C-alpha cells in the first residue's frame, strides 16, 4: 500500500482516529495501539479548575496520555461557529500542542453540523497566512473546494454524511465527482462513516484516508472495531490501487465458451 503524505509528512496509516466518547482512557489508548493509528484528533476545552473532568482525565492528564501514544496530533476547532472563534482556537492549539496542523471546523448549523462554508474559507485564508497547515472539514461543493485550495489548503476533508450519524455515503455521485475533480489532492473522508464497509467503499473510490471517532468509540468493543476499520481501510486502498473491474448490467461467463464438449 502506497504511503500517504500530508503537508510533507509521510504517514503509515490511512486511519485517523478521534479521541472522544471512549468508555475509558485505557480503551482509547488500546484502540490507537491495536489499529496502528498515526494521527489522532484532539480538541481544546475549558480546563476545569480544581477538579477532574467528565471523561476521567483533566486536560493535563489527557495530554500526558496522548503524548505517551507517540502519534501525530491533529487539533480541531470543533464547536466553533465563527471565524474569530476558530482562528483563536487554532492559535491556542498551536501553542499548547506544538503543531501547526489544524483541523478547521466552522459550524453553520447545529442540527446537521453542516459547515459554514463562507466562514470556513475566510478562516482558512487567515490561518494559512499565519503559517497553519489547514485540514478543512468541508462538504462536497466543488466551488468551496476550489476556494479552499486557492486559500492555500493542500488537502480537503469532505464529509460522507453528518458528523456522528454513521450513515455512510449520503451522496455517492458528489463524492465521486469530487475525487475526479481533485485527482492530485489528498482527500480525507471526515464524518458520517459508521461501519467498516462504509470505509472500504470510500477507499475503493480512491479517497486517501478516513477520519473516524464515534464509529469506533461507541462500538460495543471499540478496540476490536478500531482494528476492523484499520483492516477495512487497508483493504479498500489496496483494492483501489489494484484497479477494480467495471460492473456490467448482464452476466458474463468467466469460463471460456469455446471448446465446450457436446454432452447433451
Amino acid at each position: 500500500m502506497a504511503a500517504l503524505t500530508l503537508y510533507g509528512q509521510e504517514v503509515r496509516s490511512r486511519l485517523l482516529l478521534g479521541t472522544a466518547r471512549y468508555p475509558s482512557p485505557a480503551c482509547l489508548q488500546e484502540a490507537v495501539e491495536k489499529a496502528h493509528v498515526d494521527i489522532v484528533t484532539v480538541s481544546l476545552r475549558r480546563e476545569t479548575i480544581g477538579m477532574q473532568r467528565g471523561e476521567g482525565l483533566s486536560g493535563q492528564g489527557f495530554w500526558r496520555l496522548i503524548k505517551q501514544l507517540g502519534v501525530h496530533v491533529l487539533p480541531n476547532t470543533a464547536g466553533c461557529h465563527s471565524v474569530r472563534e476558530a482562528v483563536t482556537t487554532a492559535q491556542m492549539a498551536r501553542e499548547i500542542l506544538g503543531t501547526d496542523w489544524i483541523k478547521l471546523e466552522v459550524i453553520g448549523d447545529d442540527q446537521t453540523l453542516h459547515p459554514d462554508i463562507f466562514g470556513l474559507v475566510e478562516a482558512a485564508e487567515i490561518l494559512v497566512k499565519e503559517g497553519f497547515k489547514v485540514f478543512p472539514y468541508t462538504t462536497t461543493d466543488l466551488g468551496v473546494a476550489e476556494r479552499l485550495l486557492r486559500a492555500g489548503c493542500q488537502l480537503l476533508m469532505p464529509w460522507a454524511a453528518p458528523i456522528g450519524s454513521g450513515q455512510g455515503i449520503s451522496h455517492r455521485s458528489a463524492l465521486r465527482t469530487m475525487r475526479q475533480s481533485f485527482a492530485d489532492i489528498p482527500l480525507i473522508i471526515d464524518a458520517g462513516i459508521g461501519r467498516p464497509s462504509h470505509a472500504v467503499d470510500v477507499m475503493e473510490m480512491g479517497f486517501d484516508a478516513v477520519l473516524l471517532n464515534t464509529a469506533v468509540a461507541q462500538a460495543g468493543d471499540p478496540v476490536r472495531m478500531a482494528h476492523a476499520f484499520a483492516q477495512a481501510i487497508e483493504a479498500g486502498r489496496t483494492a483501489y490501487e489494484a484497479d477494480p473491474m467495471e460492473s456490467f448490467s448482464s452476466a458474463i461467463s468467466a469460463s471460456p465458451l469455446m471448446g465446450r464438449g457436446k454432452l447433451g
Partner: protein
Amino acid sequence: MTQLKVNGEWHPFSETLGALIKDLALDQASVATALNGQFVPAVKRDDTVLHAGDEVEVLAPMQGG
C-alpha cells in the same frame, strides 16, 4: 469585590494573566489562554495586566473528534 470571569465563572482578581494561572494552581505550559476573545501567548501572560470584569478563557487539550 473586584473579580474576573474565568471559563465562564467569577473568580477572585489577579493582577496579571500569569499570576492568575499561578493562583489557579495550573501548569503554565499545559494550558492556553485568551483574554476577551484574543489569544494571549504564554510568554506574554506576565505582562498582560487584567482589569475588573475581564473574561479569561483557559483551555487545555481534551478528547475530540
